[in-house]
């Protein structure tokens, strides 16, 4: 039941949002709805210890598709992440005026419903359905709200993802036709995929992987990313980077890796190399960015690269590390975007070369920025450390013949990460430039950011809280 609630609450609160006329009311309504979802998500995860929860209803019997949901630990962690990120974002952005708020918040919540569905679906067609349901509201959100170049960037984003979806749809139909009795059920898909001839498996693998790879994104399918992150409003950026990235990774973990073992074997090494290139490439590009949002976009390319490597390293430590990192990365990057947004709203720019002196003007915001930065560069005792540590370990233990070199090169990311993140902190927070009097964090912003800092520290000091679930 709780799994259904996770879908229904955002769906209903989202649809109902369109009916509101007052900005404050719709904000309160959206916050209320997202908090309700958070409670359900937290309870579902607490209840997991008994057993993995699966439910199934008839949906499209003629097609052999059912409304099947499964709350595995990984899935529930991702739903929890989704459920945490929304209220924190809404809270921190409480004072921000958005045009047509009822539509904006409605679409946000619909996207949340889609995300929940992607993580929970246990039927391939249902998965595809939610995949699209998550994308469409985000496309509107990216196209209607944001900076002046948003049309171009959101269209590029749309075309990329739409094409990925088409490829996935093609693969999906082909796979469906191979099932013995025309069925989209997970177990059937699993058995069918693995039994296909190698060449077919490889082709299907590539079709699905491109769809997932665009979402992550993996090098070189990333060229929509920086623009989309840069041009969208912060809540949308957060949905894109903290959550939709995880759709791609989750898709690989659940729907690709186990379904086409031969494809995994064939392409695993190439994908690891692409991910490795992404780590170095993303980090290098982050070093030269002037716009903080672009900097974070490229840093995300690097972080995701490490997670992709972890999936294909095929070791236990790496697979635990991936899930831990997927969760922690979502928390940290949300905090980062929120603080950047606060800075932008106060100074009217995101260009680092025009910023400076935040530490004198807004010390609390600076503390938040510094803590989140160090979480992002995986300092021990922050949440960023444990996932990266396990990922490095897992990649190192991999049976891949180049495992040591891969780990060492991926490790360069921790040096480059320190370079661009500390550059950013120095330019934004330090120095004496324009002692413009700005307001430090407001009450709602503090509440949201302090909760994020608490998660960063608690999961950093006691990571077993997360790991014991996995």
């Amino acid at each position, binding site marked *: 039941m709780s799994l259904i609630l996770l879908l229904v609450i955002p769906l209903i609160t989202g649809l109902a949002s369109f009916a509101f006329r007052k900005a404050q009311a719709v904000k309160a309504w959206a916050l209320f709805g997202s908090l309700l979802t958070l409670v359900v998500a937290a309870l579902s995860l607490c209840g997991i210890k008994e057993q993995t929860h699966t439910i199934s209803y008839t949906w499209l019997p003629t097609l052999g598709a059912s409304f099947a949901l499964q709350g595995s630990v990984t899935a529930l962690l991702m739903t929890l992440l989704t459920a945490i990120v929304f209220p924190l974002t809404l809270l921190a952005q409480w004072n921000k005026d958005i045009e047509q708020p009822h539509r904006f918040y409605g679409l946000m919540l619909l996207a949340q419903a889609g995300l929940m569905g992607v993580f929970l679906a246990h039927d391939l067609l249902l998965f595809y359905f939610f995949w699209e349901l998550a994308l469409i509201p985000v496309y509107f959100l990216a196209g209607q709200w944001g900076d002046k170049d948003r049309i171009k960037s959101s269209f590029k984003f749309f*075309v990329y993802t739409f094409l990925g979806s088409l490829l996935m749809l093609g693969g999906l139909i082909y796979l469906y036709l191979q099932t013995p009795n025309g069925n989209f059920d997970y177990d059937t898909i699993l058995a069918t995929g693995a039994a296909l001839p190698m060449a077919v498996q490889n082709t299907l693998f590539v079709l699905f992987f491109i769809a997932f790879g665009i979402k992550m994104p993996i090098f*070189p399918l990333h*060229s929509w990313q920086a623009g989309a992150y840069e041009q969208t409003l912060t809540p949308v950026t957060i949905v894109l980077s903290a959550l939709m990235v995880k759709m791609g990774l989750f898709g690989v973990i659940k729907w690709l890796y186990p379904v086409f073992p031969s494809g995994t074997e064939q392409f695993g090494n190439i994908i690891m190399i692409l991910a490795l290139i992404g780590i170095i490439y993303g980090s290098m590009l982050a070093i030269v960015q002037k716009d903080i949002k672009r900097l974070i976009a490229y840093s995300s390319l690097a972080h995701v690269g490490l997670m992709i490597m972890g999936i294909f390293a095929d070791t236990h430590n790496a697979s635990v590390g991936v899930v831990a990192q997927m969760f922690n990365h979502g928390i940290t990057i949300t905090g980062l975007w929120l603080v950047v947004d606060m800075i932008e709203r106060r100074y009217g720019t995101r260009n680092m070369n025009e910023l400076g002196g935040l530490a004198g003007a807004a010390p609390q915001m600076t503390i938040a920025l510094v803590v989140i930065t160090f979480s992002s560069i995986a300092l021990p*005792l922050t949440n960023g450390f444990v996932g990266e540590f396990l990922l490095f370990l897992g990649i*190192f233990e991999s049976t891949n013949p180049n495992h040591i070199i891969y780990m060492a090169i991926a*490790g360069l990311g921790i*040096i480059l990460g320190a370079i661009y993140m500390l550059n950013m902190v120095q330019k934004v927070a*330090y120095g004496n430039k324009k002692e413009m009097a700005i307001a430090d964090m407001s009450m709602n912003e503090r509440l949201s950011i302090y909760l994020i800092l608490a998660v960063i520290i608690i999961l950093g000091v006691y990571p077993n809280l997360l790991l014991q679930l996995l």
Partner: protein
Amino acid sequence: MTQLVYLVPLFPLIGFLLNGLFWKSMPKKLAGIIGSTAILASFAVSLGIFFEVKNGAAAGQGIVHLFDFITVGNFKIPFAFMVDQLSAMFLLIITGIGFLIHLYSTSYMHDDEGFTKYFAYLNLFVFFMLLLVLGANYVVMFIGWEGVGLASYLLIGFWYKNKEYTNASKKAFIMNRIGDLGFLVGMMLTVYHFGTLSYNDFFAQLQGGIGAQTQNGYMIGSGMTNAIAICFFIGAMGKSAQIPLYTWLPDAMAGPTPVSALIHAATMVTAGIYMIARSNALFNLAPMAQNMIAIIGLATVLLAASIALKQNDIKKVLAYSTVSQLGYMFLALGVGAYVGSLFHVMTHAFFKALLFLGSGSVIHAMSGEQDMRKMGGLGKYMPITKFTFLIGCLAISGFPFFSGFFSKDEILAAAYAKNPMFYYLGLLGAMMTTFYMFRAYFYTFTGNFRGTEEQKHHVHESPATMTIPLIILAILSLVGGLVGLPEVFSHHHLLNEYLSPVVQNFDIHHLDHTMELTLMGIASAIVLIMMYVARVITRKEQFGEAKGLAKVLENKWYVDEIYDFLIVRPLAWKARILNNIVEQKGIDGGVNGLGQLVQWGSTRLKNLQSGQVGSYLFAMVIGIIIIFAIGIFGLLYM
């Protein structure tokens, strides 16, 4: 008492939280009291632990398990502390000297607006430093290791409005991160082969020596031990400022002077020595790594000492001196004289903290002036500072019967036993040490005052909270050597006996007594001669434009410039090429160009509606995906 060890890092943590969370409302006086008391309380507990450990307790007995930190299947990393002779020794140094420096800071930082923040950071540093030495496995050490890096970063850039200072703090963190990657790879190699990161478990497996079987079924080979040892040493290079990763330490002098004393002289920078001494079971099986450590250590001794000869900033002299002294400690580690190295860690902590605090007292009196060319004759205004500084100079130079004499002698004797060349080069370093220290002493405290009238009017001896730590450290610098008397004088090398359960010293074929006395005699004679040379030269030296070698030394052998040319700038232009060409023209540009090509074709063929953004973008993305798919298949079937 051992079970209460968690109190040692807990007090500074509480101090950090109190000052850190209530920084807005905290009165200055209270902030200072909280910060200092926290460390004093830790020192008291450390003393108790020390006496307990001293009277027995075999190696590896004192594991205090706090909680499970990382658990993945059977792979467990506990958050556990190891209380033994080695960690207890470091606890005393960290909390003891730490307390003196906190006390000193209450006066030194008194007029700073960031007073509370300062004490919060300083407590945070002590907390992480204690984790570093207390950890019972490499992961806890790594937590402390990166944590002290954070505290160091925050304190170097404490005066954040100055761009140069924040550049220095950034440089320190990034250079340390380079070393940390080595540490991380070393840990990965260890887990991979030995299945553990706990000291006890790891060292027990190493007991078997080369050829023995590890828990994970590998045979211990010298390739494996050397690889792990070298990776760990790379970590140590960063933290303990050895060639090639030393250039951050002189820049780190941007921080307040007591910070330089505590972090960048007495404690944090010795973390690398602690790490290698802790892993002596590993390094004893890694002869190649040992040689590398000895050579790099010795090279660092000479390079840094030569730079110190021509520095005019009093803190820069001390900084390069620290790098050089750390080099001696690595030389000792490299020749297997772990006890000698740890002995020097201890005496160095005394006299270098003393010298830094003394320079701080001078800088305080001179209203922030650090350039020795503008000082001179300060001795008559500040006698306590002058006298204690002199003791520090004598100790670091290895003047007979001062603490540095014994520790340096032990290192040089061990180096001689390994390879006489090491000894001669080490002696050359000692000559330079005496010279640059006394050069600094004479410039600062003797001769005529060269500053402004206003400064002269202002010069005063520092208050008691600053001079008392100086006096205590001076006494320690004077008598600290007694714990390690050489065999010629005493059959009891107290430190050696104390550390013997945890450290397997390289068995030095003992030099005969005549030889050892001769070596000592030579060293002592050299100190006296160099003191005289320094006196003569400081009287004569004009502060003109340096030429030739002197200019090269003044410019630190241009190492920063070389790094800039070889690494920093190429990295920047590579990044720019990737951004401006590969990304914008290549990947993204390719996508856009593909779209345009299709559009161009379509207008020719009039098959597609031209000017429609939809089809144009659609085509371009199809293009890139086809290329990607071809690429991936191409790679596969190559």
